[in-house]
């Protein structure tokens, strides 16, 4: 801290001075443990959670913090949970190991995993976050000291990543109480020897799609149980398992939660299943309807739902408990907005018209476009909603085109439209561009008339580069899989479910060890490295990121009956 500034007028300096005084008084007065706050437990959890997750003090003021002695930070920018993660079990990123910070762990002796060790000093890399490797248990008093002054019970200083928090006694005691309660009891549906899972299927799903989902799921469960058998043999023969092995093998079971009738009744049905036999997580699932009731149920129950097959996920920046493959139809609408936004030669006054089939898919595509178009600061476009029968009436469509004279036309419709498309396009100016969704058109996408293919741009949310990885994440031969016109309309239920299980989910389940907390499963999964997938160019993770495939190509079709897919955009357009 530097007090030789000429004036103390700026608030920054005032805070520094205040903090110095605080530290001085704290060091001299500091002896007693903070008294437990005189508040009901629910209130402590609420206030403590806000400190831990949002960096806001019970008073509503931001929590002050310091890094490296003098780098002052405002904890609303980043909080305990930014580093120790939501479940409080810590993280490993950027060569820094952030240790657990739950009462369960802090009040026991602990051997901290060393931070990234000696990387050969190449390219300017070096060790920068060394850790003290062992410590005795904390108590409330030494824990308060740790948070205020950055030292463990033996007086060793933490490395520079962990901030120092000059908290008043009452605030400190709320935070410590919160840490004591954080991830205290294991989540339902998991135990030392078992994981219970369910999958969700709604009654609008065909038998064929249902089987496509269930086959890989049941295989996964069988495989887990078989591995457990092998592991038990291994122990029987007198081998000693490593620490990681001890937690990688558990019995697993899968229930099928069938949802019947109107979506308004689903939550009740889900609650009945879950109360009867709670599960640790929902693995996959499938519905042709809006996923929202299930999404909301999982949020409310804090129940992980991993990668359901749905074209109608909930688009939310704060949703926590459902991992989606992508944003479904909305992502295709968004891709068009991004693409048009980046077009050099599209003048700002080109009229853009959205013709939307009055259906959930049409509306989701349009909403995805509108949201993104608005986000990039563009004015709203004209949207016209039509019924399926209006869409196949050439006269009705012609009237709309004459009236609006669009330069860009977005057709968020089913394939019925395709037969009239050449006639419609003939009426439009030569510079006209038409956008359609391959997911909505389905198989018929390949049948777009040849003479208009140069005008028609198609959203395609799947991989185009030949896939040369393994199909299942196992030891398969590496035969490149090529995407082509034959793949239009394929929902890839089995391959997507297999990949999410074998790549993303298994990794997460193995890495939680004996920390059987649902929040921890998300923490661990969100810290995964990017994955190359069979159906998508890439899955990418990160705390709070819940739509793991971020891409969607804009393509055009080559000539012929089995046209080549010609990318006109990158996988992700920024």
């Amino acid at each position, binding site marked *: 801290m530097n007090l030789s500034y000429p004036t103390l007028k700026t608030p920054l300096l005032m805070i520094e001075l205040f903090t110095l005084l605080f530290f001085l008084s704290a060091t001299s007065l500091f002896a007693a443990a903070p008294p437990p706050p005189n508040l009901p437990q629910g209130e402590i959890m609420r206030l403590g959670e806000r400190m831990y997750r949002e960096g806001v003090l019970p008073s509503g003021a931001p929590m002050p913090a310091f890094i490296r002695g003098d780098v002052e930070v405002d904890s609303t920018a980043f909080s305990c949970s930014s580093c120790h993660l939501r479940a409080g079990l810590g993280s490993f990123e950027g060569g820094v190991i952030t240790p657990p910070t739950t009462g369960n762990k802090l009040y026991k002796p602990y051997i901290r995993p060393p931070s990234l060790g000696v990387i050969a000093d190449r390219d300017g890399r070096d060790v920068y976050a060394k850790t003290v490797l062992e410590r005795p248990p904390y108590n409330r008093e030494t824990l308060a000291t740790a948070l205020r002054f950055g030292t463990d019970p033996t007086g060793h200083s933490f490395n520079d990543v962990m901030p120092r928090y000059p908290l008043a006694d009452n605030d400190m005691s709320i935070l410590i109480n919160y840490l004591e309660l954080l991830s205290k009891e294991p989540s339902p549906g998991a135990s030392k020897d078992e994981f219970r899972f369910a999958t969700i299927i709604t009654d609008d799903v065909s038998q064929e799609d249902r089987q496509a989902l269930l086959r890989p799921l049941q295989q996964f469960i069988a495989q887990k149980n078989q591995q457990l058998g092998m592991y038990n043999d291994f122990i029987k023969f007198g081998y000693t398992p490593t620490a990681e092995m001890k937690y990688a093998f558990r019995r697993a079971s899968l229930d099928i939660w069938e949802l019947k009738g109107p979506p308004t009744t689903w939550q009740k049905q889900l609650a009945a299943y879950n109360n009867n036999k709670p599960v640790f997580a929902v693995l996959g699932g499938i519905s042709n309807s809006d996923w929202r009731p299930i999404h909301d149920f999982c949020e409310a129950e804090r129940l992980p739902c991993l990668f359901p097959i749905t074209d109608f996920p909930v688009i939310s920046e704060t949703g926590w408990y459902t991992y989606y493959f992508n944003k479904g139809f909305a992502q295709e609408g968004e891709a068009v907005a991004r693409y048009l936004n980046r077009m050099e030669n599209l003048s700002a006054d080109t009229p853009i018209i959205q013709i939307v089939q009055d259906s959930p898919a049409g509306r989701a595509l349009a909403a995805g476009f509108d949201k993104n178009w608005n986000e990039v600061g563009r004015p709203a476009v004209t949207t016209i909603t039509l019924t399926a029968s209006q869409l196949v009436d050439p006269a009705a469509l012609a009237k709309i085109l004459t009236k609006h004279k669009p330069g860009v036309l977005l057709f968020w419709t089913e394939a019925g439209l395709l037969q009239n498309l050449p006639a419609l396009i003939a009426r439009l100016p030569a510079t006209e561009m038409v956008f359609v969704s391959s997911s909505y058109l389905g198989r018929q996408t390949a049948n777009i008339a040849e003479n208009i293919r140069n005008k028609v741009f198609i959203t395609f949310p799947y991989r185009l580069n030949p896939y040369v990885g393994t199909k299942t994440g196992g030891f398969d031969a590496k035969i490149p899989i090529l995407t082509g016109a034959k793949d239009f309309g394929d929902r890839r239920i089995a391959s997507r479910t297999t990949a999410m299980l074998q790549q993303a989910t298994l990794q997460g389940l193995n890495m939680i060890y004996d920390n059987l907390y649902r929040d921890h499963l998300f923490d661990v999964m969100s810290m995964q490295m990017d994955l190359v997938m069979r159906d998508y160019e890439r899955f*990418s993770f990160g705390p709070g990121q819940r739509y793991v495939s971020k891409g969607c190509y804009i393509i055009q079709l080559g000539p012929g009956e089995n046209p080549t897919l010609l990318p006109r955009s990158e996988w992700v357009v920024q």
Partner: protein
Amino acid sequence: MRVTLKTIVLFLLLALVSATLSANSAHAANKSYKRTVEKYTIPDIVLVNQDGKKVRLQSLFTGDTPVIVDFIYGTCTTICPVLSAGFVNLQGKLAVTGQKVRLVSITIDPENDTPKIMKEYLKRYRAKPGWDFLTGSRTDIDSVMRAFNAYIPDKMSHYPLNMIRNPKDGSWVRLFGIMSSREFLEEYQSVVGK
């Protein structure tokens, strides 16, 4: 026979599991940060800033204002907060002395970091004008990382790095590690020649 096969498969499996699970366990002497002076060739690419505007990267690295570059991403834990806190503090300190600096954060998560996310990030850190956050295509981002000898194949394995461009000769002071705000300010002053 059956057992042997099983055991082999199991060993394979376990080898795989432990390979993915175990972190590097060596560790070395404490050192705060490491400083070198480098020359970099900046690729001629166009990135997108937090306002959604296209920015030609080379155009940021000209003129007589020192430029500081770091690599972060919107949802990152652990080091980005620390790096970004360093940026805000430096902005604050230089505002007091009336000195100029241009701060440039480049995302290493270009697929997720949209202008909107980057804008919110800067707001969260109370960044003042003069601190830009850039995204772009993965190919372009990879080429920037390579140009600064900072290529990482995956964002989860990044490390704390600041680079200060000296406007006098275009050289870069490369600072690896976490600095106190006094050290950071000193490094800045050494570049501007004070």
